[in-house]
């Protein structure tokens, strides 16, 4: 069963910025689905449409089996959303934040009290429950955000760049929590991120978004497998002056050679088989090798392949445009 379906979503913002250009996706119930892409790729707009916050110019989407435009009200009862910005009320205490959210979802009296205390406990906020949320640390605020999105036990949870701005420790902690939600509570989670590492670790299904459309889709491993071969990195003892590229250009099966001082990077069909001949060729040209490593393709390579530019490059470009 599909928990989220979107077909041909298009959206252009006033001012002519095209955010979505025919984006389609389908998310199997009970899985963690990742939308990966640089800033401005259209991830957040997709989440806004799926969570009824924004309307597409054209296209259709269903969440938990309900049309997001015609059945917006019922969609809102079935989803939990943790947005990119904090949704919490900084002037209210953690407990008050949760109480209000519970009331909105129709939980009152003892049921409300029970659920609020349960969430405070579970997210390690029980001690800080009576403190104003603006005094919380970044990690605590994120946990409160997540708790707010879970008050009504949603079927589908949307996490829009949930770990942006968190320190590494808080990030890993949140990752564990997300894995637990998908595992124990059988929730469907749609997560957007521009951290490759995050997508790799959390998601079972991944779509790469670029310029408002999905350019590749599959499990992280499938996507990596589609890339031919491995990346080999060789470190030389001294920096090379063109000798290396001359030496390696004659080797069969070596492509995308890049040299940066003492560092060589190349793509080869089979890393383990290529390394001995690579080293031999280099030493024959009088270049001594300090180390050699093989890397399976990373999601960054996948991104490069499908979006035609490296992830960081795309990210920087978008930021420049935005600025």
């Amino acid at each position, binding site marked *: 069963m599909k928990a989220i379906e979107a077909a041909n979503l298009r959206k252009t913002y006033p001012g002519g910025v095209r955010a979505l250009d025919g984006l389609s996706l389908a998310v199997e119930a009970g899985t963690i689905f990742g939308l990966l892409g640089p800033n401005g790729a259209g991830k957040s707009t997709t989440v*806004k449409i799926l969570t009824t916050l*924004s*309307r597409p110019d054209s296209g259709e989407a269903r969440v938990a089996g309900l049309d997001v435009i015609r059945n917006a*009200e019922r969609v809102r009862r079935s989803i939990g959303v943790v947005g990119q910005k*904090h949704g919490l009320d*900084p*002037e209210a205490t953690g407990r008050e934040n949760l109480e209000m959210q519970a009331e*909105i979802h129709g939980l009152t009296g003892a049921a409300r009290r029970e659920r609020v205390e349960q969430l405070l406990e579970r997210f390690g906020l029980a001690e800080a429950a009576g403190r*104003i949320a603006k005094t919380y640390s970044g990690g605590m605020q994120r946990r409160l955000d997540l708790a707010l999105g879970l008050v009504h036990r949603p079927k589908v949870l949307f996490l829009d760049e949930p770990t942006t701005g968190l320190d590494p420790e808080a990030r890993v902690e949140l990752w564990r929590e997300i894995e637990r939600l998908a595992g124990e509570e059988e929730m469907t989670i749609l997560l957007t991120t521009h951290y490759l590492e995050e997508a790799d670790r959390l998601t079972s299904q991944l779509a790469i978004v670029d310029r408002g459309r999905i350019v590749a889709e599959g499990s992280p491993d499938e996507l990596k497998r589609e890339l031919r071969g491995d990346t080999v990195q060789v470190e030389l003892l001294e920096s090379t002056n063109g000798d290396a590229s001359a030496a390696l250009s004659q080797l069969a099966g070596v492509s995308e050679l890049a040299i940066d001082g003492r560092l060589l990077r190349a793509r080869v069909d089979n890393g383990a088989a290529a390394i001995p001949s690579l080293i031999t060729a280099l030493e024959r040209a009088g270049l001594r090798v300090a180390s050699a490593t093989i890397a399976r393709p990373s999601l960054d390579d996948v991104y490069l392949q499908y979006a035609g530019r490296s992830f960081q490059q795309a990210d920087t470009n978008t930021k420049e445009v935005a600025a």
Partner: protein
Amino acid sequence: MTALRHTWQVALRYIRALLRQPAWVGISLTQPVIWLLLFGALFKRTADIPGFTGGSYIEFLTPGVVVMLAMSSAWVGMGFIEDINRGTMDRLLVSPIWRGALNLGSVAQSVLSLVIQSLIVIGLSLAVGAHFDNGIAGVAVLIGVAALLGAIFASLSNGIAVLARQRETLIGIVTMATLPLTFLSTALMQQSLLPGWIRWAAKFNPVNWAAEAGRSAAGPDADWGLIATRAGFLALLLLASAAFATRAFNAYQRSA
């Protein structure tokens, strides 16, 4: 029921946030006192102008200050802009909250502040010797029409906030609108002493509707027909502005 519960939740949130700012509480309680005493002193001699029939100026001024306090509700949209900027509004909009509650809860908070401020002004003015002929009923009607006016300003402010989403825009509009609306009314000056064109313009000014109705209710010979029509105009305008504030979220959704 749901509508009421949601409205109360939104109001509670704003009231709590304000009460947690001692500076805000202090300023809101002192501001009406300063206004009444300052305007009372500045325009004291107005009562000596031939043709002024309003009794002592402070008696005349009190309903005017209550109406001017109601106009301060024009600033409540700032809270909406803050909510929009920090994501709180988006979280509410993806929840099944009744849309009308977002504006009405904020309106309820500003009306509550207004009622407290009005009671301070009226109490102070009684203390310095003013006399309100229709007693509690007259004062209640005065506060009632001021509350209607405050609710109108609050709704318009919230609607503009949702559409503009910029502090500067709202500040500009409020600053530009409130002073002329005050002076194109009988808030500070008796109608018969206003220049002709201002008297004409005042007919279309909701601030003047509230000032006329409030003053008539508090004064010696209340004109209940006038009070009822002015209150009716205000009620209609409130319906329209509350609808505007709630509908503004549709435009927000299109451009979000």
